[in-house]
């Protein structure tokens, strides 16, 4: 169930099945459909449409998103929680190598804003059209092409040197402003 190697479709059933059915042809492949959990792969070119449809459903809430490095790129998993039904439906979309580009859903779903910035920092996913792609997790001085959550990043060997200690000229440090 890790990558889309097997093309076996899981039959849709229950509330999770209804939600996945409402996404129609956006769903490429269904991996899991139990009475409270669903995992499905969606068309990576139509993530915004999928996010808008999910947000439009009753009781939906973007819990968070996860980025996972796989063979072909980075899988972005959008975890949608549904209340009061208590479901979690996960939609997967692949940001392919080598550019790891995928459309940002943050303009439609503000809840995705921070988590997309986080994935950009830690995994190097390029979210096209994100409204505010500043650093969120990493320091501004961190090297641009170094992504600490990638599998080939070694926590000890690849750690960059600390930046030089700098005080911006117009900000006085602790106690310095008390005149």
């Amino acid at each position: 169930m890790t990558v889309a190697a097997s093309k076996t479709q899981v039959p849709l059933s229950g509330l999770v099945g209804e939600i996945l059915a409402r996404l129609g042809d956006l769903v490429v492949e269904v991996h899991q459909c139990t009475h409270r959990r669903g995992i499905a792969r969606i068309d990576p070119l139509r993530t915004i449409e999928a996010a808008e449809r999910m947000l439009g459903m009753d009781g939906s809430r973007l819990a968070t998103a996860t980025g996972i490095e796989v063979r072909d790129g980075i899988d972005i998993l959008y975890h949608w929680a549904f209340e009061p039904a208590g479901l979690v439906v996960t939609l997967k979309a692949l940001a392919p190598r080598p550019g790891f580009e995928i459309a940002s859903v943050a303009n439609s779903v503000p809840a995705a804003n921070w988590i997309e910035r986080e994935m950009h920092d830690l995994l190097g996913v390029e979210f096209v059209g994100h409204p505010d792609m500043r650093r969120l997790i990493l320091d501004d001085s961190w090297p641009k092409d170094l992504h600490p959550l990638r599998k080939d990043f070694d926590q000890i060997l690849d750690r960059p040197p600390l930046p030089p200690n700098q005080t911006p000229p117009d900000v006085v440090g602790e106690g310095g402003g008390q005149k």
Partner: protein
Amino acid sequence: MSHRTVVNIGPYHPLQEEAEFYQLYVEGETVVDVDVRISYNHRGIEKLDESKTFDQVPFVVERVCGICSASHPLAYVQAVEEIAHVRVPERALYLRTIVNELERLHSHLLWVGLAGHFLGYNTVFMWAWKYREPVMDVLETATGSRVNYANCKIGGVRRDIDAEQLKHIDQVCSELVGPLEMLTKAVLDDPILHARLKKVGILTPQAVKLYGACGPTARGSGVPIDVRRDDPYAAYDRVDWKVITADGGDVFGKAVVRLLECFESAKIIRQCVRDMPAGEIDAKVEAIPPGEGVGHVEAPRGETFHYVRSDGSNRPVRHKIRAPSYNNVPTFKASCIGLQIPDVAITLASVDPCYSCTERMCVAVDAQSHKSLYNFADLVRLSQEKTERLRKER
């Protein structure tokens, strides 16, 4: 348009346990925009977990947060139990419920106390923390520690609570109800607090949905979402309790939710003690098969979300952790705009973004006049002065 100034709160600030940096863009006294920067203290726990075995991860994730140190391991073990299809013994479910509710009780009392302090009600602070202390004692009795309980493991819990300790827990919870009632009345019937907190920092139900807010932050806006009821785990579907909501979405609503939830927590714990089934406290778990699982738990601040992927080895391939404040903090973009500066301290505090004992902050100094802008003491002073002013006007 008047002159726009930046007021810095943070990165190290007594309002929050973690280092967070709020920049308030103000025109005069009115906040027109908020920018939040986080992760000054990122510990890379998700990366670290990939190098730990499934059994070691609970001890790592309970250190994500000192207050939610029962919720994080529980969310993680539920995700793993979902992958491995583990049937957790009944007694373990009840024991998990007790520890998680004790955690909620102490966390909410902590918040009430600190909120009181920010508003200049130090009596509330003293009361709330006094009543929190027996809860901490009970947690120590039940788990052996006041924080980092090391209680959860895949398949059950690590430590049983014997009959005598259960009796002690029940007694403390029943003795807590009286003082809690007094405290709740004192807070909710106070006309000055009404004037101070009502219609301040309003978060609309629409904003709750857009920002994916959860926990008391959402319930204070009248959105009845609670993982304990919606996706029952532990023994929450076996006891009688109700989801507390409040209308208004203001700071007052969030305070009401937290105070009334304390009663529900005490109720849940007492029922668990009463109905505690006998039997095993853990199930034997063989190897974790390949697969992916989701575990979410209602922590004191809202939904804690964990995603685990296994490839059949003894370590998780990926472990995603999302703590509730991660979704609640961006709601300031919706709730702080248009507020006066004295109201911001309590609005930021109202989602309970974890407090701190770190008494440091960055002071921004006006480059021309060399006069420092607000520091934290000023913010608390402004907040307390406003309460005082309202009190005198009455």
